């Protein structure tokens, strides 16, 4: 009988993914492609927000979108209707995308001349926060009906996001949503987080968000 060996591994489960993500980020940087990882709960208005952002930016930037879902292609169809390049990724039952899946998705999108690729991650505030996708920046959408205490309940998500979009501001009068408290809670998790209150439905605040994103893409490309 062969001898059983004990091997000490002493490695984080995320170490390989983190290394793959770092390599992908560097590669995208050298190609001048900005990848935005957009996360949120289901129903926060990711696709509607994207539709608005694309409408504002599509004459200035070449945009592509990767829609990640467990199943269906309804979101990719909605985005494709705006005229930008869109593909649907299926995670095969998994609750998040990792760096390897993101790379595969990018190959499918064939981003060649694109300036900005937006990855619409699976709707979930837990798992996507743990897996670095290789994105240039992490952004999440919190919508007013979800409540201002979400940063307390899902700390990691708010810790890893550089930008928080607060959507559905048009319905704020009907909910007990306190924007000041929400801002305070977000900054407890990440003092540097930028916050954009918007309404994807009315278009309120979308210009400021679009201007920030455009500046990010230009800075990213300029640093080459």
């Amino acid at each position, binding site marked *: 009988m*062969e*001898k*059983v*060996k*004990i*091997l*000490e*591994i*002493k*490695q*984080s*489960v*995320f*170490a*390989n*993914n983190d290394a793959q993500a770092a390599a992908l980020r560097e590669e995208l940087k050298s190609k001048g492609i900005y990848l935005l990882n957009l996360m949120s709960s289901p129903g926060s208005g990711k696709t509607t927000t994207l539709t608005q952002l694309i409408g504002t930016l599509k004459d200035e930037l070449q945009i592509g979108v990767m829609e990640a879902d467990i199943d269906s292609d309804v979101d990719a169809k909605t985005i494709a209707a705006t005229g930008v390049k869109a593909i649907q990724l299926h995670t095969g*039952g*998994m*609750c*998040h995308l*990792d760096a390897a899946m993101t790379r595969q998705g990018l190959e499918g999108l064939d981003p060649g001349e694109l300036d900005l690729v937006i990855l619409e991650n699976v709707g979930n505030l*837990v*798992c996507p926060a*743990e*897996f670095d996708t290789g994105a240039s920046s992490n952004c999440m959408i919190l919508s007013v009906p979800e409540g201002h205490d979400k940063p307390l309940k899902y700390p*990691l998500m708010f810790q890893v996001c550089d930008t928080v979009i607060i959507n559905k501001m048009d319905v704020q009068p009907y909910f007990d949503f306190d924007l000041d408290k929400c801002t305070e809670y977000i900054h*407890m998790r990440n003092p540097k987080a930028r916050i954009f209150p918007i309404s994807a439905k009315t278009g309120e605040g979308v210009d400021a968000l679009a201007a920030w994103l455009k500046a990010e893409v230009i800075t990213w490309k300029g640093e080459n």
Partner: protein
Amino acid sequence: MHELGIVFHVMDTLDDVAKDNGLTQIQSVTLEIGEVSTVVGDYLIDCWQWAAKKRPLFENSKLLVQTLEAVTHCDGCGKDYGTVAHGRICPYCGSEKTWLIKGNELNIKEISAI
């Protein structure tokens, strides 16, 4: 399933370890999981058993889980306390200026293999 994704990542990492060390059969894998890592050990084991059947290197392998205690430090009074029992508010001085020292780990500790 969060835990399923983690199982795949562990197995992918160990595929490389097996290749580098000439291993043909992994018998057991020990993971260290922090108390507040948001990973549920029992679910991990269920996912492991399902996934192991599909990959010859892991056939009949066992997943062992060791829990690491979570400890939070308070900047208000300088003391450390158990995170699971007391959460984010310091039980000694009531300060909210606290941060996690440990308990968020998710490590592959060791494996036994032939």
